[in-house]
């Protein structure tokens, strides 16, 4: 393992912690599945940047790719919000429609990219499942910086976000800017997804947002504990999964990370079953 690998894994672990932390808020707000629609929808954005670079309109850079992903992920989130206001479209249908048709567009555009230049390094499979080994130093830096930024913002806005997810009515009554907090949550998720596509993959990002969050919520009784546990589970999943994918064979990074996250969730559930007194709040509510 070289020095650059160590740096890649560090960046990935910080990214995992940010996903775990934000995932707790998204889970409590019931927004996890939107993440899936957004990450799938980001693929055509990446392909379009690749095509624009192929035609010589722009130079392809890591920043341009992230920007393309960002625009399409945000577009998907807005479209889901708009569509579900329609009386005859359920939120589920809106998400599934956006997810699959944007992904389809992504497949077509990546196919076009392949036809223009068969030696393309931009493959759709590595963006769908994640491949940390193909990341450059610059991309690792952007992953690290964005993850740190998201961590910082979440910690700074901790009180507001907690109120939003636990008691939105109270928050609104006491003058918290509810809409702005909601937008902040979704904006943080968008930024995080856009930088994470390369390493974790469009199909697997949902798992990294939901898995560690579920682990945290199942294993803790208080919000700070849950957040800490979720961040730790996210970081550990990324560290072990990313390490496995770097060292080992050609296992894509995303699936390796998600399997570690699944093992951690199982561990916490087993641990909770063996110690019936430390029931979490949600489990108590379910018993009643």
């Amino acid at each position, binding site marked *: 393992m070289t020095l650059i690998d160590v740096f890649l894994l560090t960046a990935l672990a910080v990214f995992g912690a940010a996903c775990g932390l934000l995932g707790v808020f998204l889970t409590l707000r019931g927004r996890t599945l939107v993440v899936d629609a957004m990450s799938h929808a980001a693929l055509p954005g990446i392909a379009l940047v690749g095509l624009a670079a192929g035609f010589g309109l722009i130079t392809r850079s890591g920043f341009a790719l992230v920007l393309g992903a960002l625009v399409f992920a945000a577009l998907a989130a807005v479209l889901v919000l708009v569509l579900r206001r329609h009386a005859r479209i359920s939120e589920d*249908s809106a998400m599934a429609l956006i997810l699959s048709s944007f992904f389809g567009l992504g*497949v077509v555009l990546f196919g076009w990219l392949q036809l223009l230049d068969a030696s393309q390094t931009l493959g759709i499979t590595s963006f769908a499942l994640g491949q940390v080994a193909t990341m450059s130093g610059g991309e690792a830096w952007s992953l690290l910086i964005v993850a740190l930024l998201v961590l910082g913002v979440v910690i700074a806005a901790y009180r507001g976000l907690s109120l939003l997810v636990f008691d939105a009515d109270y928050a609104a009554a006491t003058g918290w800017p509810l809409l702005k907090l909601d937008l902040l949550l979704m904006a943080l998720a968008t930024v995080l997804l856009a930088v994470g596509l390369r390493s974790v993959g469009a199909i697997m990002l949902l798992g990294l947002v939901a898995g560690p969050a579920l682990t945290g919520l199942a294993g803790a009784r208080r919000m700070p504990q849950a957040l800490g546990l979720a961040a730790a589970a996210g970081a550990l999943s990324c560290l072990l999964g990313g390490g496995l994918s770097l060292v080992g064979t050609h296992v894509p990074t995303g699936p390796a990370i998600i399997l570690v996250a699944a093992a951690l969730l199982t561990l916490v559930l087993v641990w909770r079953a063996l110690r019936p007194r430390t029931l979490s709040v949600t489990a108590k509510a379910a018993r009643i």
Partner: protein
Amino acid sequence: MSFWPIQFPALLAALLAASACGLIGNLLVLRREAMLGDAISHMVLPGLVIAAWFGGLLLGDMWRPLNFFGACVAAVAGVALLRWLERRQGLEPRAAMGFIFTAFFALGVVLLEVTGQTNQHLDVEHALFGSLETLIWIDLMSWRDLLRPAAYATMPSALVSLSLALLVALVYFAVNYRRLMAWLFDPDYSQTSGLTLRGMEMTSGLLVAFVAMAAFEAVGAVLVVALLVAPAATAHLFARRFSRQLLASLVLALVMALLGWYLAQAPLALGWLSDTLPASGAIAFAGGLVFTLVLAFGTLSRSRATRP
């Protein structure tokens, strides 16, 4: 002329997959559970990989009935796990669903990589994007061969499983038509009239898994979702009767498959590109396109009708 041996089987597979999924998708869309279709279409992968691996080991080649069995077992196990986590463990249901299906898919992908040498017919690309382009019917040189029984010996097996899936879907809707109407639109009534909701949930879930699995091999995991959701959701925009909803989703599914197919072929036919674009992706995109057109048309005509 390569239409009959190469393009016709792929187009036929797309049409069969679209009509089977388009019909079955009503079970999900009308219950406002479209994302369950997303979940099931991902969850079949590990079952499929294990079954194909065992089949390859024991029987020398892919043995399809075993694949179907494996996929259905995986889907049932996944849904059972999901229900257990939300009811018994008190996890947030949507997040639990999202995590379980991602984890199942991840397991499938890793198993594919591990058993890679023994699975010639399955790889990660096919699981993600399908393999419409690889369906070839060698003995079909013109439409006249369709009448020749001997030509069916080399028919791609995907066409058999897709036809079977469509047949099962049609029979299911024909036999359960009234029961389905009650269950989908008035669950309370259907419960008081002696139907077990659990039973309907179980059979419809199994059916979704079965059809998704048949279509999965042709168009891939994510694009099955498009075939399941887009036709039913589009039909739901304007259909006001159950029978029309079913008919409209069937027709829309066929339109979507044809439109996507021609979108994928057009750049080659017009001489813009050196090859066709991926048909499965184009079909999924066409689903979004058809939905947008119907939505826009409905909104426009309604605003015209209400204008003073």
